[in-house]
């Protein structure tokens, strides 16, 4: 106790806190970095090379060793070692400089793609992570799931065909559904369709699309098209996109007999003493939250009006099917209505 001095104690304390912060801060903490790096072994490099080759071959592009080194963010030696090992295990065949997947290489790549897309589906349906985080998390998880775990995951999710971006999930026998649709940029004015796919690459454009609140499964109607921009209406809102963004959104065109509700509004704009009819719930709400709202009676055709305002403005209580249910503003804004 002789050396005790409040200032020394405080200095030691703050030094320790800063150290703990550097070690354990989310994502960039040294502890996590070291742990992730020690995990970045051959397996992950090999699987990433396989995935890269698979996606490029699907697009009819063939890569050489230099392309692979340039595209992947590992150090060159690791990648070369990986490629050697892959060719030893007959996952790839190397002719001259060109690298091609063998049959067993394709099978392996499909397994990784399946794990990745299933995990994205899982994140979308069963967790509260934000849409922009799914891809990165699945990039890590795909290397950890074994074949058996992947199959269990698939059956728990009800063997889904498509991941939340609309990409097909390969089955355990390697079967892949086809995306049938047209990019929004190629549709003509007046077309009605359902969004079936949003490309998650390049990331910058994907994040912009997310920021616009455009979601898989929503109905859209094209209202204007010029070389510089495309305007469409969806779920009661107007969207204006540059052609490059519109090209990354695929839509399956619907037959003429589909009813497209034009003057939709959101429950959040309903005022006191107004009544409205519920048209549906935006596709943005999925999983448990969606089922919960359905359970409470927010279904097509139900009458709704405001029951109680809040002293702080949010949440508001809505009278639906004789019961007063409070919803927050951000939820009410996902429920589509038609005012009476």
């Amino acid at each position, binding site marked *: 106790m002789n050396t005790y001095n409040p200032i020394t104690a405080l200095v030691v304390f703050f030094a320790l806190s800063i150290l703990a912060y550097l070690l354990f801060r989310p994502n960039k903490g040294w502890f996590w970095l070291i742990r992730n790096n020690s995990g970045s072994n051959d397996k992950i490099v090999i699987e990433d090379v396989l995935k890269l080759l698979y996606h490029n071959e699907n697009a009819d592009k063939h890569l050489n060793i230099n392309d692979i080194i340039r595209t992947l963010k590992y150090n060159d030696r690791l990648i070369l070692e990986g490629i050697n090992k892959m060719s030893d295990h007959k996952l790839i065949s190397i002719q001259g400089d060109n690298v091609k997947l063998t049959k067993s290489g394709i099978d392996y790549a499909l397994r990784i793609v399946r794990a990745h897309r299933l995990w994205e589906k899982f994140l979308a349906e069963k967790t509260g*992570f934000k849409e922009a985080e799914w891809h990165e998390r699945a990039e890590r998880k795909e290397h950890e799931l074994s074949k058996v775990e992947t199959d269990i995951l698939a059956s728990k999710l009800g063997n889904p065909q498509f991941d939340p971006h609309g990409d097909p999930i390969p089955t355990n026998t390697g079967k892949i559904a086809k995306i049938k649709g047209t990019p929004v940029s190629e549709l003509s004015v007046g077309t009605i369709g359902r969004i079936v796919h949003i490309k998650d690459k390049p990331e910058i454009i994907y994040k912009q699309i997310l920021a616009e609140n455009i979601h898989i499964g929503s109905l859209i109607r094209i209202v204007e098209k010029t070389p510089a921009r495309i305007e469409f209406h969806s779920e009661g809102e107007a969207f204006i996109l540059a052609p490059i963004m519109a090209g990354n959104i695929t839509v399956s065109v619907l037959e003429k007999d589909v009813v497209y509700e034009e003057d939709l509004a959101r429950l959040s704009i309903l005022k006191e003493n107004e009544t409205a009819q519920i048209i549906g719930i935006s596709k943005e709400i999925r999983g448990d939250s969606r089922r919960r709202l359905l359970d409470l009676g927010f*279904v097509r055709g139900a009458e709704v009006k405001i*029951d109680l305002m809040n002293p702080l403005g949010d*949440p508001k209580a809505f009278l639906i099917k004789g019961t007063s249910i409070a919803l927050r503003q951000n939820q009410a804004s996902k429920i589509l209505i038609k005012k009476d």
Partner: protein
Amino acid sequence: MDTKKIDNIISLSNDLRWQIGDEFHDNLAEGIYADAAEIVKDSVHKKDEKGAIRIDAKIDKIITSKVWGFPLMFLILALVLWMTIVGANYPSAMLSGLLLDTVHPALKGFAATMGMPWWLDGFLINGVYLAVAWVIAVMLPPMAIFFPLFTLLEDFGYLPRVAFNLDHLFKLSGAHGKQALTMSMGFGCNAAGIVATRIIDSPRERLIAIITNNFSLCNGRWPTQILIATIFVGALVPATYSGILSLAAVIGVAVLGMVFMFLVSWGLSKTVLKGEVSTFNLELPPYRPPRFWKTIYTSLIDRTLIVLWRAIVFAAPAGAVIWLISNIYFGDSSVAAWLIDSLDGFGFLLGLNGVILVAYIVAIPANEIVIPTILMLTVLVTGISGGAGAGVMFELDSVTATGDILRAGGWTLLTAVNLMLFSLLHNPCSTTIYTIYKETKSVKWTVVASILPVIIGFVVTFLVAQIWRLSA
């Protein structure tokens, strides 16, 4: 042949499923919901209940109004707490008179006539019996008042409106409005507050409510706060104002607890709980007259007795441990003295002392026995006169005498302030920890909920102590 047919059927069904697509399930479910709603609309006719609805709406307009909503809420909470704390004094005094002052000496006398060896008599009567009797005397009356009052308010339909009014504040910290209720329930008992989190059906918000419930100052801690504030904080000002100042200090600690509750909720929802599913909705049931006797009965059975029973189960071994560490000797000092000595340095850093830390370790089962344990241990290590012997917890009727013992143990105003802070920010009692485990079924969240508050407590008391000493 047969297996081949079956295989064909399976592969056909798989193909068909692929053709239908993922959307089909959702659309079918939503279609069924909508059809059911149509059928109900056509066939079910409701009586016109306009009269009843008007009264409900009138009450709602006042309770959720900008002017009256919040004052009314605080008034009711203050009233419930006041009735609990003041009202519990009388039955508590009666119970402790009976269990501690009458039955305890009687048991001692009985043991003496039986010729029971001193260690068995000490272990069973001074250790186990005393801890259990103490917990019952201090815990039962406030819970028996608080829970029925709370349940009546719930039954009447008022509490969901409170959650409705406050939801926006809780949303800012990533929590659910109903946490206002579980938090208030925590003022009665954290274990009961945690059981009450069942009303929150969103997994993420429920975990937040469970982990932060400990920041509500529970019944077991109110008396400690009031006693210490009266002795040390109240003494700072002339006698006429001392009551008000010590009351303000206690309320300040309780409000600080709410501040920590919001901060920790926010931190949790942004970090470790980011991936948990979050769904919000709140049903506002119609008002109805509470079923008085039924409510009293169920709240006594479901809440009070279950919590009390768990507390007794945990208090008995704690009493044994308290008696044992004071009576088992290594060399020439008792285990308790060794522990106190080795924790004194750390305690000093936190502006506390070894006695307080040891008392908090052995009194994990119930916050109610912290002060008696501190008094007993202080007498034990300082060797001043008073108390009832090694390992026998006691409390003094006179606040001044209690203060004299604590000051003899080296307590200053800093010790008192930090004890009040540490009493707010330390691990939940073992009953609560066990309840957290039962509710979450997860070792991980139980550990987080138990360790997190005590780490915060260490940091806060440490910082207060250093700044205090620097500015003194």
